């Protein structure tokens, strides 16, 4: 598999997608507000996510060799495409930095309470720069390895929770947490956008797929699998913690694991949660940075985007530090500003592109038909 064009197989893409979807969603809350019936909302959001992914896939199949910024250029022309691509680029940088910030803050809040945020974030960025400078192939291979690790950690964690006897099924009721409307509102748009809409970042990776037809199947499996796992995890957290603590906690999975006490021997298995968080966020952040590198390389016609790894990494690092003064502010920002931008980037723009492209195609078709007459 030597050669200048790097390709990735569908299994590798699947691994990367799943880890990306897990991201921070698996350890903290998803959606705008923390909600009693998050687990249900996740399940409800899955069909919508599949639809949304269908749009991304359609756009990819129309231009199987082009990444996002290139096909935007094809669809709306060079003038409009620049600001759009730049907007997407900026948003990806911001989101990558946000994820990094969240991971760092959670680690500090839970275990490393006296370590400066800069050190933790810098360590992660350092490793990320190393990985990305070796190319996307290394990243996807790493994803395959670590998917196994995460699965093992996950199974261990779930078994530990189940055997600890801390689950109380009564915590599940009332199922809808008070109102069905609330459940639906959490699903659409909040969970749809985060984490499922973020798959749009993969539009920079899909062109590397060695078998384009697999794009749809891979994405669908990734969405369904990660959705089920996320739903299960959040459901378990609710069962163990109870309504009040689950909704108010910043780091729900950690709190859940910390009450486990099996035979007075297996206690405080925080390490499992920490490792999961670090690994999943690492991949999410790396993928965003890769997307930034790819778009930047494409916009500015840089030959080997791998060299951009270091500058992008440093920008993400500093942005993560300066994006918010405190964790509550970070969460607040997430709820308001970020939601809007996320909506624009992952739903509005792709939908517009889809419609414009469709319009152009049918316009061309009609023109040809009328010409032939």
């Amino acid at each position, binding site marked *: 598999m030597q050669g200048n064009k790097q390709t990735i*197989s569908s299994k590798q893409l699947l691994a990367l997608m799943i880890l990306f979807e897990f991201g921070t969603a698996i350890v903290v809350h998803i959606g705008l507000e923390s909600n009693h019936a998050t687990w249900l909302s996740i399940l409800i959001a899955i069909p919508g996510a599949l639809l949304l992914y269908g749009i991304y896939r359609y756009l990819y199949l129309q231009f199987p060799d082009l990444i996002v910024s290139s096909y935007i250029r094809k669809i709306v022309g060079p003038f409009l495409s620049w600001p759009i691509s730049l907007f997407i680029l900026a948003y990806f940088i911001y989101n990558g930095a946000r994820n990094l910030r969240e991971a760092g803050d959670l680690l500090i809040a839970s275990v490393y309470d006296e370590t400066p945020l800069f*050190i933790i974030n810098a*360590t992660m960025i350092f490793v990320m720069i190393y990985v990305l400078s070796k190319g996307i192939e290394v990243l996807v*291979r*790493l994803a395959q390895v670590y998917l196994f690790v995460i699965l093992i950690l996950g199974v261990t964690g779930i078994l530990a929770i189940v055997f600890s006897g801390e689950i109380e099924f009564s915590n599940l009721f009332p199922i809808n947490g008070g109102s069905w409307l609330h459940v639906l509102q959490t699903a659409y748009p909040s969970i749809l956008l985060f984490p499922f809409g973020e798959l749009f970042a993969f539009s920079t990776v899909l062109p590397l797929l060695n078998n384009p037809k697999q794009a749809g199947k891979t994405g669908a499996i990734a969405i369904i699998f990660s959705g089920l796992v996320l739903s299960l995890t959040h459901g378990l957290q609710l069962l163990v913690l109870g309504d009040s603590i689950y909704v108010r906690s910043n780091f729900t999975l950690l709190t859940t694991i910390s009450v486990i006490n099996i035979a007075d021997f297996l*206690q405080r298995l925080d390490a499992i949660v920490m490792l999961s968080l670090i690994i999943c966020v690492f991949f999410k952040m790396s993928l965003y940075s890769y997307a930034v590198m790819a778009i930047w390389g494409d916009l500015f016609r840089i030959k080997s985007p791998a060299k951009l790894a270091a500058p992008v990494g440093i920008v993400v690092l500093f942005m993560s530090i300066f994006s918010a003064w405190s964790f509550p502010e970070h969460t607040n920002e997430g709820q308001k500003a970020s939601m809007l931008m996320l909506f624009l980037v992952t739903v509005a723009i792709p939908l517009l592109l889809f419609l414009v492209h469709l319009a152009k195609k049918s316009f061309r078709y009609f023109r040809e038909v009328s010409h032939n007459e």
Partner: protein
Amino acid sequence: MNKTSSAERISTDLELNLNRLKTAFGPSSDLIFKRISFQGIQAAAVYMDGLIDRQIVHDLLFDSIATLPDDHPNESLIQQLMAQDLSIINVQSLTDLGQVISAVLSGDTVLFLEHYEEALSYETCGGEVRAVTEPSSQIVIRGPKEGFNETLSTNVSLVRRRIRNPDLWLETMKIGSVTHTEVAMMYLNGTAKQEVIGEVRRRLQNINYESILESGYIENLIEEQTYTPFPTMYNTERPDTVAAHILEGRIAVFVNGTPFVLIAPTTFFMFFQSAEDFYHRTDVSSGIRFLRYISLFISMFGPSIYIASITFHQEMIPTPLLLSLASQRESVPFPALVEALIMEVSFEILREAGIRMPRAIGQAVSIVGALVLGQAAVQAGIVSSAMVIVVALTGISSFTTPSFNAALSIRLLRFVVMFCSAFLGFFGIAMFSILLTAHMCGLRSFGEPYLSPLAPLQADELKETFIRRAFKRFKPALLRSSSRKPN
């Protein structure tokens, strides 16, 4: 290489030839000249004592050559000698002195004839070599107990005996501008990939080095990346292992003078498989393989997890254990990292000393080292008992790795991980392991990704890596090219 005589032709003057040889070889007293005469011609046989088999030379000179019948007085003597039926000794005719020197150094006996411009070289290799015995490393309980020795031809023959197939091809070359060491490549044609064969050949031929004393030299010279702690070529002393790898499509590189044969391309998981795995039952082998991976984990991360738990994550240790550890550490004046370093370094010193030590003292020191020093150190309050146990367990785990050079790498990495864990606890360990895995993912050995079949994922092969499946379903197909069907 002696400048004067490389391209010089053999002259008809016997004495001149012999003198030139004497000049080339200097005062070397093991270069023997035996003058004989037969059929009225003066002749001299030249050979290197120690490289030849004396019995064969004796028979050759005094039975075969000296008794050459004088039937055809018109034919040249060279022709007659070459036509002679000498059973299995090969005869070649040489025309220049360089060839003569090369032949003598290979253990041939060269016959000069007065008035003839050609010389004959008879293959008479022999000499004292080590017998084929049990290999010193990579010992198995069940399986063949033959190990390679230092002679290339013997080693090649040991593999030939196991794969009796004409597709087993052998290419030899001489590498090393001063040592002219014989190096051979062996592979199964049709199974091994052409690109890999070509790559290995190309790299071997590109070696521009003076001395090749051991296969390690070759390994260093043809490796892709030198800035990696992981070996990218496998080496082994066992013919059955070499045969198994050749059958999977890999290439074996033999080097004269060492029993260690190189195998390329390599994956990380090869270092954790032992030949024995295939000789035992599947469930037993799977269990033991699984144990090996656990030992790998312990030997790499053992002390680090201990340090991280003790200094950063005290809440993860069960309370009674923590209280016991706390009471042990009361008397130790060092921070956990320093204590761990002291113990680990001492252990490494003991281990190295154990290898070099003469057999007689070895046993005593191991008992002294392990029991008395450890106990005394604990009593003196230098280290805590828990640390002794952790280090001992780590050390023993590192011995389960079948391959020595991989174990070395892991030992060294262990120290780096210890520093990471002392700095940032579990986060440090996690980050370092991501870094390390990323490094391994990016590593290739002759075109083969280092972490196959885990990444890129080949599900069939993966099962074979971590556990062993029954032979009936076993289809080794790692590097097969399309022409050969799997069994």
